[in-house]
């Protein structure tokens, strides 16, 4: 267990690991993500304790969650991609392991409509409560053509 590559290939259960110039990208399913979260926090070699970014990308036929994690002791960084079904996007919350995910997931919930199960406080954060639609999705139609130039 010396390098991050060994750790990721031996300890982490996922679909695919990509290494692009030292940046590790891990592809996994929503079920594998639940297991992965606890192994990232509880192992003693690479503790990925700092979540520096969390976002979602609309890939037209599906939604893709992106988690950016950093190990503050070794400064290693990884990116996790989880594909979600667009008709019913649902994923386990990360806010029980990283407190910052609480507010970041609320933003994704508001703008993409991804539902985070077991989230302590899943409410809209940016848009008003009567707003309809998810503006950052690609199929969002802007009724008064305010955003699109």
């Amino acid at each position: 267990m010396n390098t991050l590559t060994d750790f990721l290939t031996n300890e982490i259960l996922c679909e695919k690991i990509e290494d692009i110039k030292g940046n590790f990208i891990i592809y996994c399913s929503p079920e594998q993500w639940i297991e992965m979260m606890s192994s990232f926090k509880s192992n003693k070699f690479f503790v990925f304790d700092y979540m520096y970014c969390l976002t979602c990308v609309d890939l037209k036929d599906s939604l893709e969650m992106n988690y950016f994690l950093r190990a503050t002791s070794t400064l290693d960084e990884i990116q996790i991609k989880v594909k979600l079904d667009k008709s019913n996007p649902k994923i386990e919350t990360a806010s029980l392991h990283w407190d910052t995910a609480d507010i970041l997931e609320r933003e994704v919930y508001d703008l993409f409509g991804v539902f985070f199960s077991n989230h302590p406080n899943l409410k809209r954060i940016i848009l008003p409560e009567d707003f309809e639609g998810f503006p950052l999705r690609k199929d969002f139609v802007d009724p008064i053509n305010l955003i699109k130039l």
Partner: protein
Amino acid sequence: MYQTKDILLSPDQHQDGYTVINIGPQHPSTHGVLNLVVTLDGEIIKDVQPNLGFIHRSIEKMSESLSYRQFIYVTSRMDYLSSHINNHACCLCVEQGLEIEIPKRGQYIRMIMDELTRVSSHLLWWGAQSMDLGAFTPYFYAFRERDMITDIFEKNCGARLTMNYMVPGGVMWDVQSDFMDDIKKFIKQYQSRVHEYHDLVTYNFIFQKRMQHIGIISKEDAISFGCSGPVARGSNFRCDIRKSYPYELYSSLDFNESLETSGDCFSRYLVRIKEIDESIKIIEALMADFPEGDFQAKTKAVLKLPKGEFYQKVETARGEFGVYIVSDGGATPYRIKYRSPGLSNLSILNKISQGAKIGDLIAILGTLDLVIPDIDR
């Protein structure tokens, strides 16, 4: 945005008999349009729920229909106090995709501008924080020095707040001939007057009493809540991107990461004051060997990033700012995400202000140094 049922809660509606008051959105101490729903037991804070979205302009969606040259300028409007550094992050991200080599002079100008921005942002914060705590004079002291920096920006970039000076490949145009003299004049004036800052505020007993031992962030919380910048460094968490993931020429520079251990409001204050000195040290080192040559690399008129993903992070005055670009090979980005330092720093507010007095909330909120357009985007 606020939920009507949260915001309208009178004391008799609350089951424990607590008082619910709203601070903001139009309140000077929130430094912008932020609404805080504060639940109070007498004078003790039980819960603080921030409501955002009053200045949401959907910058991320807007950027999807702007070209790779245009979207950079929208980011000046996010964290308007470190607009140079925001532009810098976007330029670096585009350059990472295009694999452009920046001329040395361009890099030096960018770094000097970055550090001047950091100084001016911290000076403004210093004045505003003192004003939040009831002292009016420091505000004018800070603005006296800050105006010298904004004058430098105006002379070289044409704007005082939203600069739009950096372009992919370097900077838009070369600096003016008296750029060096202006900076030297500023450094001389700042260093001759910095003792006034300390006499008036730092060593002031009343000020210290209002800042010490309140709003304490532990190192574990700072990591878990994703804090960055002076907020996290006040809790002894090493997170300076210039040190840990150096960009431009920061790896070759000799400067210290300002750290404090106690994690209270006063240590966050000290970190920022120390950072001003470090920034001035960096500016002086850069000015000593300011190179001649080109200030901009040659780039195509229409930029197209290759298919893929690019992430670039920089250290702004408020913390780690990240740009995440997903490109589909077209002339406009497919998706852009801005990792704003303010949003993560705001999320810790509820945790650290519980148990504090309502008066202390203003000091805590001030030392988090929030810029609301950066949070709402």
